[in-house]
């Protein structure tokens, strides 16, 4: 009988009561494993570019100013919060924070830019320890992603450009 089933359905509804949460009037905590905005720790980063290599959205740009200076830029606009960068980082310099309220009308707010002083490994020059051949760095050497237009350049070079690309950075070398 249709009326009976309607009554049963209404009973289901009434038993549940009101389930609307008071967010955003009250904050809503997230579980510990939640993958929010990645935070890059400049102190721990060794500039290996493993995160850039393994970001599916190609949102982390790498630019070598000179042998000693590498710029790592996290754009964040197309970041999918997958957490691969945090997974592969050998120094655990990236944490997936709990921030999910990332809406802003200025794109630069989400981006993070790291300027890293690269000390030279005596043997190979740069170091990244991959967990499997699938995570291996393919673009080894010097990187020149397009920071202006925020785009990846899919080539790397064995040596630096002959002219310095940024001329207002002066690095004091000892000795």
């Amino acid at each position, binding site marked *: 009988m249709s009326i009976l089933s*309607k009554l049963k*359905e*209404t009973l289901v*509804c*009434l038993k*549940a*009561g*009101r*389930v*609307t949460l008071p967010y955003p009037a009250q904050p809503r905590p997230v579980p510990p494993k939640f993958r929010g905005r990645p935070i890059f720790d400049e102190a721990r980063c060794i500039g290996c570019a493993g995160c850039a290599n393994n970001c599916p959205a190609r949102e982390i740009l790498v630019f070598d100013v000179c042998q000693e200076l590498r710029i790592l830029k996290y754009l964040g606009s197309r970041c999918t919060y997958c957490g691969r960068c945090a997974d592969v980082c050998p120094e655990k310099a990236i944490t997936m924070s709990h921030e999910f309220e990332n809406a802003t009308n200025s794109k630069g707010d989400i981006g993070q830019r790291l300027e890293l002083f690269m000390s030279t490994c005596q043997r190979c020059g740069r170091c990244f320890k991959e967990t499997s051949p699938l995570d291996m760095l393919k673009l080894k050497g010097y990187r020149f992603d397009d920071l202006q237009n925020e785009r990846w350049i899919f080539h790397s070079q064995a040596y630096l450009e002959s002219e310095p690309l940024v001329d207002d950075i002066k690095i004091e070398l000892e000795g």
Partner: protein
Amino acid sequence: MDHNISWIILGGLANIALVLLVAPFYQGILRKVTARIQSRQGPPLRQPYFDLLKLLGKEDLESGETPLMQRFACYLSLATVLTVASLVPMGFPSPINGAGDVILLIYLLTLSGICTLLAGLAAGSTFSLVGINREMMTMIALEPLFAITIVIGAIHTKSFRIDTVLNGSVYAAGFPLSGIIMLVVMLLSFQAFVQRVPFDISEAETEIMEGPLMEYSGPKLAIFKYSQMAKLVLFSSLFVALFVPWGTGLVFPLGWLLFWAKVMVLVLLVTLVAATHARYRIDQAIRYFAVLLFIALVALILASYGF
């Protein structure tokens, strides 16, 4: 004579103002109760007022095949509804009693239905034409039900005056059978009059993109929405006046408040049915109305024989 006319005019305006003020409130109750049934918080009771204000503040866009008809249809719909408002007794005898009889009432209600048809024609797009097609079929089956109720009332009281017919006339001479039958028929078809699920077929959002009202936006949409809200109140008032008239004799303001309480009960009933049903298809709805129409005709015949 002048004194009388000014009272009549003031009374009519008072009725209209009352309906305009109160209609969004009942709509708000409807939305809130629906939300609570759906386990949601729901909008505040004042929300329909805000919605109307917001729509009135938007850009007045004219689109569709004939913008002139578009304007005409929306103004006409509110005008007819408000005219009916001044005719219907709302806890006290209607002020323009002498000016019109029940036939006028039936015609005005049909006219307000025709406004939707005009709106759909003005839009001229495929979906709105499908919508008014459905609306036409629904109207053909529905308007007679209401007309038959009124006529039965007229038969029993032997008059066409609004105040006599609407004051529980269906029950004149002590609960005739035709009155009871019409009570049941009107209850069963009430959802269609106020255009709610399961019979809001002509404006099925998910199927035909809102049908006749497709091209309306901004202030014109506000007027249409207002007239729909007012129709809910008006039909409930008519129903209460016809079938549940007891207590109108009480001294003002008790009788008046009792009237509005009865309207509230009816609105809650509408909400409950709307929240627990799925929408019917047009052919299923027409079959349903056809059965009700047949029963109503039987009741009419009984009434003419005095039952």
